[in-house]
């Protein structure tokens, strides 16, 4: 073997190892393809932004498994082995192992001009107003806002928005306020903040003050990342990144107008 060909072999050996090692790992994210502002297939959601940040921090290639987060979504994605991480799930979701919570939000009142200032189910004006609520459509269950409305006698003036439909339920609720079909709506904070802030004029947001009678249905939830149960190593890595890049993640959430209850009791804007 000539020295030239020997060195070519050596170069190749070095390069080939390097190029094989370059995408050292995949960061495989399970995500909803059409759930603005959290996640979208064009990767414009805030969870997509956070995923990109974490993948870069891990030196990993970001890959997505797209599936609507509906009934059985953990089983159909992580459970089938097609992905390893949910960017945002409730901290107490028992079907996954969760990281430390990186934000906390709440159900909020999104108030149109006729409902300004409402932040409690006891507000006397509510009875005469048309109220929108998200319906989760699972096992006769409701969102905490749905339970609270029923418990405080708001039945006939409530309109439900199902998970299924043309675009996210929260967006349809905000549209209904803007076009006058609703006076206000009860919406999970991260969705409410985004759509309300981008309405013209922006709609008022108020963190829900839960009625005393509804003790078993929390209105606030801690949101964490979720990995496969037992995947402690990945969880620990993610915890470290959440800690290290906390300010950057807070900045992303702020750009998307996520109302936070772990920073301040006051909702934006």
């Amino acid at each position, binding site marked *: 073997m000539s020295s030239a060909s020997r060195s070519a072999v050596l170069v190749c050996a070095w390069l080939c190892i390097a190029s094989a090692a370059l995408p050292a790992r995949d960061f495989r994210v399970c995500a909803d393809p059409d759930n603005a502002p959290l996640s979208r297939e064009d990767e414009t959601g805030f969870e997509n932004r956070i995923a990109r940040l974490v993948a870069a921090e891990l030196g990993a290639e970001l890959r997505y498994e797209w599936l609507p987060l509906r009934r059985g979504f953990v089983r159909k994605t992580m459970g089938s082995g097609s992905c390893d991480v949910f960017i945002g799930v409730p901290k107490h979701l028992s079907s996954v192992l969760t990281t430390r919570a990186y934000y906390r939000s709440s159900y909020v009142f999104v108030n149109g001009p006729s409902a300004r200032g409402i932040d409690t189910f006891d507000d006397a004006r509510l009875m005469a107003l048309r109220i929108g609520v998200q319906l989760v459509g699972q096992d006769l269950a409701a969102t905490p806002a749905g339970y609270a409305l029923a418990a405080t006698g708001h039945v006939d003036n409530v309109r439900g928005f*199902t*998970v299924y439909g043309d675009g996210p339920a929260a967006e349809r609720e905000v549209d209904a306020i803007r076009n006058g079909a609703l006076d206000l709506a009860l919406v999970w904070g991260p969705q409410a903040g985004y759509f309300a802030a981008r309405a013209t004029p922006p709609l008022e947001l108020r963190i829900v003050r839960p009625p005393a009678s509804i003790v078993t249905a*929390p209105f606030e939830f801690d949101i964490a990342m979720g990995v496969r149960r037992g995947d402690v190593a990945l969880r620990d890595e993610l915890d470290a990144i959440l800690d290290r890049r906390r300010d950057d993640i807070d900045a992303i959430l702020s750009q998307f107008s996520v109302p936070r209850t772990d920073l301040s009791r006051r909702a934006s804007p």
Partner: protein
Amino acid sequence: MVVAILLGGSVRAADDGDWTMPAHDYASTRYSALAEVTPANVAQLKLAWSFSTSIDKGHEAAPIVVGGTMYVVTPYPNHVIAFDLTKPGASVKWTFDPKANPKAQGVACCDVVNRGAVYADGRLFFNALDNQTIALDAVSGKELWRTKLGDIAVGQSITMAPIVVKGKVLVGNSGGELGVRGWLVALDAATGTEAWRAYSTGPDKDVLIGAAFKPFYPDDRAADLGVKTWPPDAWRIGGGTVWGWISYDPELDLIYYGTGNPGPWNPEQRPGANKWTSGIFARRPDTGDAVWFYQTSPHDLHDYDSVNESVLADLPLDGKTVKVLLRPDRNGYLYVIDRVTGRVLSADPFVHVTTSFGVDLETGALRYNPAKAPALGKVVREVCPASPGGKDWQPSAWSPRTKLLYVPHQNLCQDSVAYETSYIAGTPYVGADAKMYADPAGQRGAFMAWDPIAHRKAWSIAEHFPVWSGALVTAGDVAFYGTLDGWFKAVDAKNGNALWRFKTSSGVIGQPIAYRGPDGRQYIAVLAGVGGWAGAVVSGDLDTRDGTAAAGFVNAMKDLPDATRKGGMLYVFRLP
């Protein structure tokens, strides 16, 4: 009751040995007049041939047999396979792939099942999961038409088997828990054009309630109850889907079918009877006009869909012959209903029932037990029957010889013990954590024979797992059913004595049929392939550590993955 009248003027006796619709005949008897197989010889029954569908989801369909050809429709992707029964080993004549939208799989609540095709006038009709009804030329397998009836984007899917009545293909939707508004549609069998659509909620004009509507009970007689028994607008997404069985009485010219549970609201947010969900409609097949309605579970609190089969029989009651509808309902009662008027003649519990105290025969009302009503934060134990009911979709069979109804069913209760954090489409909430388990008698399933004249069980066979297959009974007085752990069984129709069993490669949730082959011999056919709500722990690879999976069903099915494996397989048996 055994006569099946086919369409287009061609009338043949049902005992010609064909099996043209999943329920065998319009009366939904699943009774075969073939008598070659008897209690005396069934022990000799041998496998004639078998065929793998190579699909791993739950196989609930009935094979269809017409003129020497057998047709099988699989779960999603809803392939139709035609077998030439005149060839040794029944070779495949053709296969049809409807190219159903894969996204429909994410919509179906409880496995991607299909309950079968139907044959009429040289055509085979079936539904694909993505809301398409398709007509094929039964000889060539060529597509004649397809009609899209619903939209997966709003949560709709179709799993039921269509039926053809007077030149119309009748099809209903699934997806009640997702905010789908239920309907039954009639399509012109020749063209696929929609003739009428009857909604299960909303104003009378949408429900096709008009001058012909004469319900037996006064509670059903006011105008627009499909609106007024709901909070404003809640009926628009109120459920009442039509994913079960349809029967037809040619003499009375009435079709009968059940409507599913109300949804997707929590019960507190939908006060009222929530008509016309969880009940039975009688309608005219030509126009869809409603003739009567009876609500088995008003303001349903427990997911007791009322989609179960309506078996039509003429019974000697109080010295005269009465045209009745037999209905083992999900709420745990076996109803005998006058099918002319909609009046409940009797309603007896056939399983352990704690959610109600009985049916008031004066008013027709189910007397709920308030202690078992679900409420946020309240622990409710021993809810019996559990949400799948005393009996779910799995259809019964009726023998005019024994005058017994053969009912595959389950004996399950459930606890709503804890409230767990849940998450749907980016929306967190706290929902009840249900866990199902065997009733106090301790056996999760049964295959029983019910005597509707004496109002009692004639006999019952306890099964380890819920019996999720259909039933078949023959003129040889042999009844057939399958179990989730993969036993296909024959029992004496008179006394329930075990006569024969065959171990299948996967659990049986299909509907057994009997037919006469081109060789003149009696054959018994059934699809194996575990799945459905009960078998999803195997077909969906659910985690047995999570008892709340499959809406709590997994808790009752933790030992199923050790008992069977997934995979569709068609089995056909014959005497030597």
